């Protein structure tokens, strides 16, 4: 029987190239590859966050993307144009970069912005009004004549952001722009940056080690581990469906042998994990990165392999509740940890040790200590399972 081949319909291809495209890039330092990215694309108007442990190559990736670090191998393209040594300066003038340190020039705040505008070829008559406008938008108009050494950390970051946005970059690169700031200042600045990115629709690559910054600011997030993109996808999906135990552990999951969990949990069928690399982009185009940049989790197999337990899926039951004795599992507190208002308990559950997230106030109210015995429930729908390697 002759079967008619299916009619293949291809989705309409938009002519717009990605704002940033990294293809087969390798950066070598000494005898070691510090970055090895097969493919990474950021569409115009999108914010991509890059998360990863210390030394994963996040800043190297950002410098490479911002055309500030030559690649050993591969291509970096901005808005469809492959970077060449000859055109680096012109291409950089389409972008702006904000570093971890504000790196303000030793001149007044106003002149810092005007110098950036001058370097971008903005006519002299336009510089002063544009500078005034951006100082106003960032709430630092009163600092126009201040010198950088007189500014607080938060003020300096605002100047740095104003200087970057004032040049109206088509793409902005942000390298942990709010690190080493107090929580209050940081919270405000993240909010301001979020508003700016939305209003200006600037393409952004944000390197951060703060998960909440990625969740608040990024349309998509990439996890970089040991210089390689371990997973990339829409931010919310990525945090819910880590593709590998390494990614899960980085995201704060506790990864345990399925067999070490209480029987009820170990055999729980978590929902099928969607391919983590389905990177539906704002343009509507769905791309499938090459298999070497993502690790598709194996199909579920109850009873074996590894299970990832997100700390937020573990809920402590109220000790006074009438149902708590019959509901959930008994666990023993192994350690009490916490920072920046967020607490974490390490709990011995069955033969496994899992982490539970809860506010520090609750830890204090319940007087939880090492050795305390608690009842917990675990949202099985949020567990992620990986088969043990064959």
């Amino acid at each position, binding site marked *: 029987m002759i079967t008619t081949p299916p009619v293949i319909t291809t989705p309409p291809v938009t002519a717009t190239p990605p704002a940033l495209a990294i293809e087969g890039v390798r950066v070598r330092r000494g005898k070691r590859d510090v970055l090895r990215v097969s493919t990474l694309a950021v569409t115009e108007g999108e914010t991509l966050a890059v998360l990863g442990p210390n030394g994963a190559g996040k800043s190297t990736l950002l410098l490479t993307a911002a055309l500030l670090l030559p690649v050993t191998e591969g291509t970096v393209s901005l808005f469809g144009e492959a970077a060449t040594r000859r055109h680096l*300066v012109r291409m950089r*003038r389409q*972008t702006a970069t904000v570093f971890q340190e504000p*790196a303000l*020039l030793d001149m007044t705040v106003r002149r810092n912005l005007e110098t950036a505008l001058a370097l971008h070829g903005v006519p002299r008559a336009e510089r002063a009004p544009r500078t005034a406008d951006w100082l106003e938008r960032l709430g630092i108009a009163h600092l126009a004549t201040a010198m950088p050494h007189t500014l607080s950390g938060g003020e300096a970051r605002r100047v740095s952001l104003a200087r970057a946005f004032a040049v109206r970059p088509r793409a902005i690169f942000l390298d942990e722009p709010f690190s080493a700031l107090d929580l209050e200042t940081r919270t405000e600045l993240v909010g301001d940056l979020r508003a700016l990115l939305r209003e200006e629709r600037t393409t952004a690559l944000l390197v951060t080690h703060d998960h909440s910054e990625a969740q608040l600011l990024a349309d998509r997030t990439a996890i970089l581990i040991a210089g390689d993109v371990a997973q990339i996808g829409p931010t919310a999906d990525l945090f819910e469906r880590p593709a590998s135990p390494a990614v899960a552990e980085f995201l704060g999951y506790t990864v345990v042998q399925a067999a070490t969990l209480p029987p009820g949990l170990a055999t729980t069928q978590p929902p099928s994990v969607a391919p983590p690399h389905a990177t539906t982009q704002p343009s509507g185009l769905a791309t499938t990165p090459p298999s070497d940049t993502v690790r598709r989790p194996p199909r579920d197999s109850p009873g074996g392999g590894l299970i990832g337990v997100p700390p937020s899926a573990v809920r402590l039951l109220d000790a006074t509740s009438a149902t708590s004795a019959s509901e959930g599992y008994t666990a023993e507190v192994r350690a009490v940890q916490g920072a920046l208002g967020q607490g974490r308990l390490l709990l011995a559950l069955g033969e496994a040790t899992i982490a539970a997230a809860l506010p520090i106030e609750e830890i204090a109210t319940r007087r939880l200590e090492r050795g305390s015995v608690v009842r917990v429930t675990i949202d099985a729908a949020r567990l992620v399972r990986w088969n043990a390697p064959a």
Partner: protein
Amino acid sequence: MDLILDGFGEAWRLLTTGENDIYGITLRTALITGTSTLVALLIGLPLGLALALTRFPGQRGLVALANAGTGIPPVVAGLLVAITLWRSGPLGALGLIYTPAAIVIAQALIATPIIVAITAAAVMALPPTLHLQVRAMGADQSQYLWLIGREARLPLLVAVMAGFGAVVSEVGASMMVGGNLSGETRVLTTAAVLEVSRGNFGGALALGFILLAFIAAIAAVLTTVQHRARRQ
């Protein structure tokens, strides 16, 4: 004490009367030291920047060489220049020995390593992120050098002061390659040496005071520039 007071008196008398070509010697000193400092700056500044901003094999060795060069004895610099400019030397045909130009060359040789070493150290001391930030702001090579130089302007002024200080106070090189010829190559330091050799300590002290006043005036100008630069 009387000798010092006599020296003050003699300095005042020389300055008010202009005897012993004191105006000519002072003006010549200013011209020669100013020119040699300028030449050293023109050579030392780009060399210092290049040493700090480029990576190449042997860079550390060159930085060490520049650092060592800050201590070059004026007599050695003078000797090298004298051998080179001597009538039978490689550049003897130029006829520069015992001319102000010879002193300028010798003094530039003394000041250049100082300016190279301080410039390189000043630029290397800038935060690495600042270099990246200037590049990221879209600066081309000349804009980058200008902005980085501007960031290091205060230590660069120190380099100018140190270079000038070294040449204005040296005597060995000026004597060796200039010959201390009256009306031609006599500068404040060599004139003071001559007065001492004659036993005229009052005259020598007078020249010393004028030299100190000259250095203080230049230092005051440079310090004013430095303060203005800091405020900008």
